[in-house]
Structure formats: structure tokens, C-alpha cells
């Protein structure tokens, strides 16, 4: 017998069971798709951070920085150059071009080391234009679109630039940022002349930051990528479980074929090689589909991920995916490795089980008593560990540890809880069919438990993340209502126009609230310091978390400042702590305010205190308090009088709407991930029910023979699935709420620095329950149709003496 003939015999199994083959291939494709999709997103984002770090931060080289976060005097740079050091100055800050705020990086192209991947100025003419007034701003095409017409500077578009950033000459940067004679850092070239005076002697107040340190953005986004990876791994694991159960059953069902082939002279080794080849073939086919779907998933998710990263962390990631060859290779590798891992047990059984042992496809789906006991013990240990981490550990990793242990422990516990529940129901029922219904549901449990665990995780994630996002949204909108108290916001295009505007507005509005801010470094962190006037608006509306009595008097006097929650938590500040805001400016923390969605620290000081230290601070933007019915008139008057473009005059409603839109866009990806998770669970359920339906006949035929119609059996089958889904859904609610609490009270605080109150949204649970119900009905539809349409002759085969 040739190998080909043997292979044909083995493959004929799949021809007879196309749905089983479909479940196997879809499980594999799903595992590959979601894993490689998530990896692609992470790789793209990380490549973007690396590019940003390399281009914007010259991250490949060492830098001299000020350890206390203060600005470096330009004289330090001059001293180093004179001493022969090959160094180059950089000044960074945020600057508003009209309504667009950009990260401005001032460089000195003549001294910038050649190995830095900064801006390409091409030729001497470009270089001259860059360093001589009026100067050039080098930006990405996207940024150029935004700031065109908002600046008198010439724009130069570069594809290598990242959105939201601009390269300019350092002299120009010092003027725009009003930081004459100051530097943010000094880049040190790799090649230096030997025998130079040590840096420690020349600039003793500065320290060297080595190259390739993890960038701030990478650090900030770590938790987000960890979340994505966890989701990818969950989907991968569920996909592999589908593969595991399908292959296990297929091997058991083919045992007679294996036996026949062995009896006809096919060696065990040859049989193993054939089966392995079959699996690799399937893995490659499903891997190709998986990688393609993964690419599609990544492409669909990436814009959402980019929005989330920008909204939450201020990280810029392109919304388009580049197709990398290593991605294809790793996709196929993961498909093959996943197949081999999930079929290893079946292959080992093939090698070990005696040639003439009978097949036991019914027994195959059951788990052993010892296995169940181990599962419960493992669940208890994980839940205990989760509690211990919550009580005694802190940090982001510990937060994720609490989440991981909680979810895994609860899902491992689910089969035991459901089994106990079903036993209880069985014991309390007296009618024969009802008793059988519960008993049969309990018997199906081992075969369905993996799918139910996946469902529990998916539902809990939906409830948990949904509660977190909705709580966030509710708090955010309430906070926005408080914070955006001014009826109209106006931005002048230059200081001259701003002066005229102030004078003009004085007689027309109830109060003018200047929005002035400077970028600074406080306690080594990049910060924004806002100056506010003493106005009842702030006293009435500004959302404070804690504050001393008469807090606004302290702010107005310049002796006290407010800090945002994230800075307060990050620095573990207390009321009364003193902050070093500038070289001659110290102020005490007198209050803390919520500042959702801002990755950076922020300080609010009295406007006089700010402007006396920063006399040239830009005063282009204003909040205006007017009676609501006067807003429209004032808006048109402003437009007529000053010719301001519409984007420079925003009313409160428009601004709130804009903020809400940004918020919703930020959490778009969580919604998509929730749907994917639920889809994965539904597919796992479908696959499990399909696998079980192959083994159901011997369990159902005796009941049918005793007078229960096929229709009633099918209805009971539907009801059983729905009961298990419902029980899992009910179990998912407390788990989801626990997940939400950990996210809000532990993970968010560690990751973002703000803590949100938790709200309950029962309506969302009903909606999720209905979606889950629809998924349950869909997942049971095909197995049910098969059962309802089963010919009596099929059921009779169960009782036939020669089956």
C-alpha cells in the first residue's frame, strides 16, 4: 500500500465531516488571525514610537540633561563646544500655530551629529533658509495641512516627520517659546576627539542620559499594549482550544481507520508522519487565511488604536498598516506551532494506545474527576493570589496581576459552579424530563466548559470594560460641564489682535478669562503651567478633588497653586507641599483638580504670578462669560469686527461636542475589541456544540425511544444551551463589575494617574445580554437543525446490533 492510498483513507474522514473540518480550519485561522493582527498593531505602534524617538528625540545618542528637570543654560553648550566636544543643542516645547498645538523641536543643524535621523535639509540653500529669519518649519504632510495659513513661517513638508511635531531652527524656537538662552538637552555625538576635558568637570550640574532608553511614550503606552497582547493571547488560546477539541474528536473517530491501516501494514511511524503532514497542511492553509484576516483585523483596528493612543497618551501612531514580510512568516509559524501544540496530546495517544483498543468518542469529551478537582484548587489559588496582590502589592504590573488572576481563577471555577448549580436543580426537580434535562446539561458541561469559560471571559470583559468606559464617559461629561463654564472661546491670531480683542471685549461681556500657559519642567516632568484670573467662574465651577478653605484666594495671591490629579498621584503630593516652578518661583499645593484625558502634569497658578515670571507669555486665547442668549450675536460681532475664522471662535456646546467626539473616538477600539471577544466566544461555543452534537445520539436516542419527540428534544437542546449561557452571563456580571472596579481603582490610577467613580449601567447589561442571547441562538442553530431534522433511521442506528 502506498502512502498516498493511506493518506486518502485518512483524509476521507474530513470529506464526510465538512463541518468538523470547517471548525478545525476556522479555529486555526481565528487563532492565527487575532494573534498576528494584535502583534501587527503592537509592532506598528512600537515601530512608530521608535521612529519618533529616533527622529524627534535623537534617541540613538546620549544626551546631557538637567537632573532636576530645569532648563539648561545655553552657556553650558558654548562651554562644551569651546572645550572641543562634538555636541548639539536642542530646545523643545509646545507652541500653538493658530488653533493647532505642535511639539516644536528647535535644533542647530550645523552641529547636529550626522548619525541622528533628523531633518534632511538637502542643500546649502535649504540650510540657509532654515537657520536665517524668517526660518522654515519642517512638518509632516498631515500637520502641514492643519497649520497652513496659521503661520507666517515657510512650511517644508517631510514624509519622515511625525504628525504633531515640527522642526525649526533653535534660535527661532527660543523666540517662539520665549525661552531665550535656554536649552532642553544637549546631544552628544558618538565620535569625540581623544583627551577632552571630562563632562563632569565642564558641566557638573548636568548628567548624561544614555541612548536607547525607553521613551516616555513607550513607557506610558506599555499598559495599553499589554492589554492588546492579553486580548490577542486570549483569542489565540480560545482558537487553539477549538483546534484541540476538534482534532481530539477526529482522532478518536478515526481510530477504526488507524486500526485498519495498521493491520494492513502501515507502520505506526508512517501513520504518525501522515497525520503530522495532514495537520501541517491544514495549518498552512488556515495560517494563510488567518494572516490575511489578521491583516484585515489590524487594518480595521489600527485607526481606532491610533485614536486611543493619541487620546489617552498623546502618542502619534499612523492609522495605516505596512505589510512586513516577517509578519507573514511569523503568522505561518504561529499557525503551525499552534496546531502542533493543540494536537500533541492526540498524537501521543496514537503512539501509546494499543492497536486494538476500541474508540470512545463519547468518553473523549469528559474530563476526569481528578482533573476537575485540580481545576477548582487552581482557581482557588488564583483568586487568593488576586486578593493578596490587591491588598499588598502596588504598581501597574500588580494591577494587571490582580486582573489576570481574577479572570483566570473565575473562569477555572466556572465549570464547578455550574456543575453544582445543575446538580442542585436536578435534585430539586421531580418530573422525569426535567430531572433528565438538568442531568444531561451537567453531563454536557465538560465538553462545553472551555467554550463557557471563553464566554465568561468575553462577557466579563464586556461588562467590565463597558462599565469602566461608561463610568469614565459619565464622569468626563459631568466634569466637562463644570470645566467648560465659559460660553464662548476665542483665539486671536497674534498679540496685536489679542490686545485689540481685550479692549473691545471689556465692554461687551461679563468677564474675560484669559487662557495663558507656559511649558515648564517641574520635578523633572514636562508640565504646563496655566495662569488664571480671580473670577467667580472658577470658584463656582472648577472641579476640585481636594482643596484647602479659600483655595482660590491662595491661588489669586500667587502663594498657592492647584495641581492636576495625575501629577498629584504620580508625585505622591500632599496639600501644603512646595513646588519649584521656576528659578525664583516656589508655591504650595493648595488643591487638586480632575484633569481627565491629559497624559501630562498640569499646574494652575494666579495669572499675575505666572506673567511676572514669564512676561512674554502668549495671550491669544480667552474664555468669555456672556448671557447664553447673547452668544450668537457676540460670535457674529467678533467675526465681523476681527475677521476671525470660524475655528478661532468656538461656543461651549461646540467645544463640548468636540470633546465628546474625541472621547468616543478614543474608546472606539475598546468597543471593537469587545465585539471581537464576544465573536470568539460565540465561535468557540458553536465549535463545541458542533463537536458535542457528533456524540449526542447515544445520549438522546434512549430518551427519544421512550417517547420524547425529536422536536421536543431539539427544543430542550436549545433551552439547555440558553440556560448555560444565562448562568454564565449571570456569573459574568459580578466578575465584570469586579473587573471594572480593578480597572477604575487600580489600573487606571497606576496607568493614567486618575481615579474615577464607578457607576452601574444595568441597561447596558440588558443590551449585552440580548447580544449574547443572539450569539447563543446562532451558535446552537446548526447543531439544532441537524438534530431536529434527524431521520428516525439515524437514531435507530444507535440501537442497531451492528453499528
Amino acid at each position: 500500500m502506498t502512502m498516498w492510498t493511506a493518506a486518502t483513507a485518512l483524509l476521507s474522514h474530513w470529506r464526510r465531516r465538512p463541518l468538523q473540518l470547517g471548525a478545525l480550519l476556522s479555529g486555526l485561522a481565528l487563532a492565527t488571525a487575532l494573534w498576528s493582527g494584535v502583534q501587527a498593531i503592537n509592532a506598528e505602534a512600537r515601530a512608530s514610537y521608535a521612529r519618533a524617538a529616533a527622529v524627534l528625540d535623537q534617541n540613538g545618542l546620549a544626551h546631557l540633561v538637567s537632573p532636576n528637570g530645569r532648563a539648561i543654560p545655553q552657556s553650558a553648550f558654548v562651554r562644551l563646544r569651546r572645550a572641543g566636544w562634538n555636541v548639539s543643542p536642542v530646545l523643545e516645547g509646545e507652541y500653538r500655530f493658530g488653533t493647532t498645538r505642535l511639539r516644536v523641536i528647535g535644533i542647530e543643524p550645523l552641529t547636529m551629529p550626522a548619525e541622528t535621523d533628523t531633518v534632511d535639509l538637502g542643500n546649502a540653500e535649504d540650510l540657509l533658509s532654515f537657520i536665517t529669519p524668517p526660518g522654515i518649519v519642517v512638518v509632516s504632510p498631515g500637520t502641514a495641512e492643519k497649520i497652513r495659513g496659521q503661520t507666517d513661517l515657510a512650511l517644508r513638508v517631510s514624509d519622515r516627520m511625525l504628525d504633531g511635531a515640527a522642526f525649526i531652527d533653535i534660535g527661532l524656537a527660543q523666540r517662539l517659546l520665549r525661552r531665550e538662552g535656554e536649552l532642553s538637552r544637549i546631544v552628544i555625538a558618538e565620535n569625540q576627539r581623544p583627551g577632552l576635558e571630562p563632562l563632569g568637570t565642564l558641566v557638573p550640574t548636568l548628567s548624561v542620559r544614555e541612548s536607547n532608553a525607553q521613551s516616555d511614550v513607550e513607557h506610558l503606552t506599555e499598559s495599553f499594549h499589554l492589554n492588546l497582547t492579553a486580548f490577542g493571547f486570549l483569542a489565540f488560546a480560545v482558537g487553539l482550544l477549538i483546534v484541540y477539541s476538534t482534532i481530539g474528536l477526529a482522532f478518536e473517530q478515526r481510530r477504526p481507520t488507524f486500526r485498519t491501516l495498521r493491520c494492513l501494514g502501515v507502520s505506526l511511524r508512517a501513520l504518525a508522519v501522515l497525520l503530522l503532514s495532514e495537520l501541517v497542511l491544514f495549518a498552512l492553509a488556515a495560517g494563510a487565511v488567518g494572516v490575511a484576516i489578521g491583516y484585515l483585523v489590524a487594518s480595521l483596528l489600527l485607526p481606532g488604536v491610533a485614536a486611543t493612543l493619541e487620546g489617552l497618551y498623546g502618542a502619534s501612531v499612523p492609522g495605516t498598516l505596512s505589510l512586513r514580510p516577517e509578519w507573514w512568516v511569523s503568522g505561518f509559524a504561529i499557525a503551525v506551532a499552534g496546531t502542533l501544540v493543540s494536537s500533541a496530546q492526540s498524537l501521543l495517544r496514537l503512539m501509546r494506545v494499543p492497536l486494538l483498543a476500541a474508540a470512545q468518542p463519547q468518553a473523549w469529551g469528559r474530563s476526569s474527576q481528578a482533573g476537575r478537582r485540580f481545576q477548582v484548587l487552581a482557581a482557588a489559588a488564583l483568586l487568593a493570589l488576586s486578593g493578596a496582590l490587591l491588598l499588598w502589592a502596588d504598581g501597574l504590573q500588580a494591577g494587571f496581576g490582580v486582573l489576570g488572576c481574577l479572570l483566570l481563577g473565575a473562569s477555572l471555577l466556572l465549570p464547578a459552579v455550574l456543575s453544582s448549580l445543575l446538580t442542585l436543580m436536578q435534585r430539586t426537580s421531580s418530573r422525569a424530563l426535567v430531572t433528565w434535562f438538568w442531568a444531561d446539561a451537567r453531563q454536557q458541561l465538560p465538553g462545553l466548559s472551555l467554550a463557557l469559560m471563553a464566554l465568561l471571559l468575553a462577557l466579563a470583559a464586556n461588562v467590565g470594560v463597558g462599565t469602566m468606559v461608561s463610568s469614565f464617559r459619565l464622569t468626563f461629561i459631568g466634569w466637562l460641564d463644570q470645566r467648560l463654564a465659559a460660553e464662548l472661546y476665542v483665539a486671536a491670531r497674534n498679540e496685536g489682535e489679542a490686545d485689540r480683542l481685550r479692549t473691545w471685549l471689556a465692554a461687551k461681556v461679563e468677564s474675560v478669562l484669559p487662557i495663558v500657559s507656559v511649558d515648564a519642567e517641574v520635578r523633572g516632568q514636562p508640565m504646563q503651567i496655566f495662569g488664571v484670573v480671580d473670577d467667580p467662574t472658577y470658584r463656582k465651577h472648577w472641579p476640585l478633588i481636594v482643596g484647602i478653605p479659600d483655595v482660590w484666594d491662595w491661588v489669586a495671591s500667587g502663594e498657592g497653586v492647584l495641581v492636576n490629579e495625575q501629577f498629584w498621584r504620580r508625585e505622591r503630593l500632599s496639600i501644603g507641599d512646595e513646588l519649584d516652578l521656576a528659578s525664583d518661583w516656589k508655591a504650595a499645593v493648595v488643591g487638586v483638580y480632575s484633569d481627565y484625558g491629559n497624559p501630562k502634569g498640569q499646574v494652575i497658578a494666579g495669572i499675575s504670578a505666572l506673567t511676572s515670571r514669564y512676561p512674554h507669555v502668549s495671550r491669544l486665547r480667552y474664555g468669555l462669560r456672556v448671557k447664553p442668549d447673547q452668544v450668537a450675536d457676540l460670535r457674529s460681532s467678533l467675526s465681523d469686527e476681527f475677521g476671525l475664522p470660524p475655528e478661532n471662535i468656538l461656543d461651549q456646546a461646540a467645544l463640548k461636542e468636540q470633546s465628546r467626539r474625541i472621547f468616543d473616538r478614543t474608546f472606539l477600539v475598546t468597543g471593537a475589541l469587545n465585539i471581537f471577544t464576544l465573536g470568539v466566544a460565540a465561535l468557540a461555543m458553536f465549535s463545541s456544540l458542533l463537536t458535542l452534537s457528533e456524540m449526542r445520539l447515544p445520549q438522546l436516542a434512549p430518551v427519544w425511544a421512550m417517547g420524547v419527540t425529536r422536536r421536543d428534544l431539539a427544543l430542550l437542546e436549545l433551552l439547555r444551551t440558553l440556560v448555560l449561557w444565562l448562568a454564565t452571563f449571570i456569573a459574568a456580571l459580578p466578575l465584570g463589575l469586579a473587573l471594572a472596579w480593578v480597572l477604575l481603582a487600580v489600573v487606571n490610577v497606576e496607568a493614567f494617574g486618575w481615579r474615577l467613580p464607578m457607576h452601574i449601567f444595568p441597561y447596558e447589561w440588558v443590551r449585552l445580554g440580548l447580544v449574547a442571547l443572539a450569539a447563543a441562538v446562532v451558535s446552537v442553530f446548526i447543531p439544532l437543525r441537524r438534530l431536529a431534522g434527524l431521520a428516525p433511521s439515524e437514531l435507530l442506528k444507535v440501537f442497531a446490533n451492528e453499528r
Partner: protein
Amino acid sequence: MVIALRNLRKSYETAEGRLEVLRGINLDLGAGERVALTGESGSGKSTLLHLVAGLDRPDSGEIVIGGRDISKLDDRGRAAYRRAEVGLVFQQFNLVPSLDVAENIAFHAKLAGRHDLAWENELVERLGIGPLLTRYPEQLSTGQQQRVAIGRTLAARPGLVLADEPTGNLDEANGDAVLETMLSLSKGTGSTLLLVTHSQRLADRLDRQVHLRSGKLE
């Protein structure tokens, strides 16, 4: 229960074409009569039993049980007939795997609305399955499973007991013991018994024998 089969025909579609399994069967069974149905493999014994049990429908002919033609009943009607009037014992896969022995024994009687605990206890005692009541079918030997199946069938006190090779999986000694118990108990309930068997030795122990050859009774 009186049974009358009139000109019963049944065929199946196979890869080779239509296969006629029963070709005009006529048979009468008196109330409480115990009849052995014998024949070669493939002669149609099981098919005939399934038709009488209401598990399948004939192509034509009548199956009159207690004065009612069950071949005219729809799926629901035939299910009700099986539930109320028939007890079935097969060679294998008799028991409901998710229920323990006690629940299996009571199952059909409860479905039929004739649950009688005293009668069940008596059956358990006479079948010698008292120590097995809390076990599940997969924890029983084949002989024990057959005893439980007989107990379950008789617990419902059906008017008609249909058995398809009930001792086919058992050795001779066990088979004899199981059959003996079944015959004695069914006699006590007054049930009509139609038993399919290959074994002439077993057939000899019943009231009457009918032999099926190529779809026809001899």
C-alpha cells in the same frame, strides 16, 4: 395487549438502490403472549421491531395495537404511544447516560405517569441491582446495564415489551439469567412480549416462535 400487523412493508434507500426489508408481514399476537422473532442477519427482525415500537413508519400496511393503527400516527402521536404503552430493551445503549441507576429505573415510569415506588423496589430487589442504584451507566458492566434496562422497562408496566437481542452482548450464563428474570417479571405484569433473537435456545423458552426470512414470515 393485542397486536395485529397487516401487509406491512418497509424499504430503505441504499447506495445500490432501494432495498426492500419487509415484504408484506402479517402477524397477530394475543394479550400477554410471549413471542420470539428469529431470523438470519439482515432478514428484517429489528426493522419489524422498530415499526411495532413506533420508532419508524412503514411504507404501507397497518400496525394495529390495542385496536388503534399506530402507523397513521404523526411523530407526536407515536411518541405518546411509546411513552404510554411500549417498553423497549435493546442490546446496547439502553440507558440514559446522564442519570444514575435509580433515576434510570424511574425514568420511563415517570414519563408514562405510572411511577410506583413499591413496584420499583420490588424490581430492584428481584433484579439484584440494589447496590448499584447510585452508579451511572458507564460504571456498570454490560450484564448490570441490561438488568437495569429491564427494570426500567418493567417499572413502567407497559402493555407491550419489545426486546431486540437483549442478551446479545452477554455470555451464556448471564444471558440466561437476565432472560429468565425478564420472562418471569413480564409474566407478572401481563405484558405482551416480542423478543428478537438469533438464539434458537432462547426462542424455545417462549410461547411461540415466528421466523423471518428475506422480509417475509415463514
